[in-house]
């Protein structure tokens, strides 16, 4: 298998943790809330998901449990940031630190253990194509995430719910004046984001690399946060951004197997370096942010 084929076949799976977390965060940020606890929510989801599979609960229960702990952390976030109107940045950091701590606590006795992932489902016909065939052999979660991407795109594009979310994010005072319950909608958005972060973590630890290692999320939650900015809060662009990072993380594997004379540490830092560079390019364009950005992002709202 050539390097290109390897990257094409694997990039969807590599992109899935980024994609799931970023889609959840997109909904949260569209409603005007900034949840910086994503990394911790993913880490706890990963640990719980792994434990459930390892103890014989199966993948369905693992994703359910990971979603539940994600929502649990999201509720702590919402209680402080929406209920008590504390600073969203500080609360996000606090919940993130708590989630990471909890993940290493519960995962403590499972360090370096492995499980089996999920089988790949092939699209008949397409998966036999040369070069790109590998793209059409993916596990069920990848297919479901593609579906989720489409659903969220359609939700923002065509549905009333999408309009309500956007209205609340743009101008919560006006949205409330016409009768929408800002805090309730934001609470639901934050819970959705927590569940998606939990799923993203579970995918990382039970399907993509079916093992548990403390700190295995390795900044993917933070990159997902950056992806929402890269995608200028648009579903389609976030999807392609996630694909780019999926491909990038595989490219470093390819470079290592091809024996390029590059230090492996440079390859490992590549996603972080690219994040910094792309972030600078996108945010330097203030017009782009003004057109697509969320006006009330990160501001506390209340009577």
């Amino acid at each position, binding site marked *: 298998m050539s390097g290109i084929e390897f990257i094409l076949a694997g990039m969807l799976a590599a992109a899935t943790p980024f994609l799931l977390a970023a889609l959840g965060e997109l909904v949260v940020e569209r409603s005007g809330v900034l949840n*910086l606890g994503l990394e911790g929510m993913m880490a706890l989801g990963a640990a719980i998901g792994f434990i459930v599979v390892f103890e014989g609960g199966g993948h369905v229960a693992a994703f359910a449990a990971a979603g539940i702990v994600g929502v649990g952390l999201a509720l*702590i976030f919402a*209680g*402080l940031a929406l209920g*008590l*109107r*504390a*600073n969203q*940045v*500080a*609360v996000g*950091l*606090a*919940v993130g*630190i*708590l*989630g*990471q*701590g*909890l993940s*290493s*606590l519960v995962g*403590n006795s499972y360090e370096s253990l492995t499980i089996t992932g999920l089988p790949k489902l092939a699209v008949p016909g397409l998966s036999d194509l040369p070069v790109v065939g590998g793209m059409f052999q993916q596990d069920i979660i990848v297919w479901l995430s593609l579906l989720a991407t489409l659903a969220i795109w359609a939700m923002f594009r065509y549905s009333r719910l999408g309009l309500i979310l956007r209205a609340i994010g743009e101008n919560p005072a006006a949205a*409330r*004046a016409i009768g929408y*319950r800002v805090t309730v909608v934001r609470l639901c958005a934050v819970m959705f984001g927590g569940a998606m972060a939990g799923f993203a973590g579970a995918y990382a630890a039970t399907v993509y690399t079916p093992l548990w290692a*403390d700190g295995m999320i*390795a*900044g993917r939650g*933070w990159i997902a*946060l*950056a992806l929402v*900015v890269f995608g200028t809060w648009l579903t389609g662009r976030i999807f392609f951004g996630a694909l780019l990072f999926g491909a990038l993380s595989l490219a470093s594997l390819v470079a290592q197997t091809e024996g390029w004379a590059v*230090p492996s*540490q*440079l390859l*490992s*830092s590549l996603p*972080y*370096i690219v*994040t*910094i560079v792309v*972030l*600078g*390019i996108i*945010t*330097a364009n*203030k017009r782009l*942010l003004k057109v697509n950005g969320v006006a009330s992002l990160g501001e506390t709202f209340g*009577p």
Partner: protein
Amino acid sequence: MAVAAPFLALLAAILLNLVLFLAMGKDPAAVFYALLLEPFMSWSSFSEVLLKTGPLLLIAQGLAIGFRAKVFNIGAEGQFILGAIFASAIPVYFPQATGGWIWPAMLVMGALGGALWAVVPAFWRVRLNANEILVTLMMSLIAIQVLNYLLLGPWKDPMGFNFPQSVMFQYDAMIPILLPGTRVNVSILLALLAALLAWVYMQRSFGGYQFMVGGLAPNAATYAGFSQSRAIWLSLLIGGFAAGLAGAAEVAGPIGQLQRSISTGYGYAAIIVAYLGGLHPLGIIASAFLMAALYIGGDNAMVSADLPVAAVRVFQGSLLVCYLAAIAFVRYRIVRTGGAPA
């Protein structure tokens, strides 16, 4: 009243973790004794608390200045690592050098290294409008890779049995001991001096006032002609400088070489320290001391009560969560509004 918040938070965190320890099947009395009291029971463990207070105090003072101006530098971990790397360059390249200038020069190098690592997020924020939270965090993740590269490659001790660590530093590269018989060195005085400087700057100078206005009321600050770019540059550079200094003091102090585990999450713990101290230079002295005691207590509890290290991180995280809740209760009063007023 705001002074009450950290104490309420500590109490709430103890109660929450009590439940957690019970669920884990640990004896809570033994755990809390090891965690909160044992660090103060002997001179040797108390001196270790003082030793840990140094880096936490330094980093948190630097971060708090930025947090007040709403510049969220969460990459102190990376700035700390760069500080340690820059400081180590002297003993690594001049292992035979002697003289009283070496350790002060290492501290200067470390502070410069930390500040240098903060230049990227500052430039990105001021010129490219990029969120400093994401950029500082990414810089931290890169810093870990830089450290790994040096320790596995060019800076690896040739006589070190292939362990990822540098040579042990020579005598003159070590900061002089302050309290004989302990590992507490002169750098704790630097940390206290930094706290004093931070107090003068933030509470008693016009520059600090500008920072505070910029954080509380950005529009008012702009209207008054306070430069926001200047506040961002200063916040990040001061934060990086302090964290880098702490990193240098760690390798030139208790560790004595560059190795992978130079930081046990100081950069992240310092965020908690800064908030718990109410972002006030004097409050931070107290909270840094508390956090240091938690570190030492955590080590004790690991030995005596078989508590995983991660439990201490959970305790730290819940402390910040409880503090943010407590501060809201101290600042606001709960009023029944009978539904949202239109």
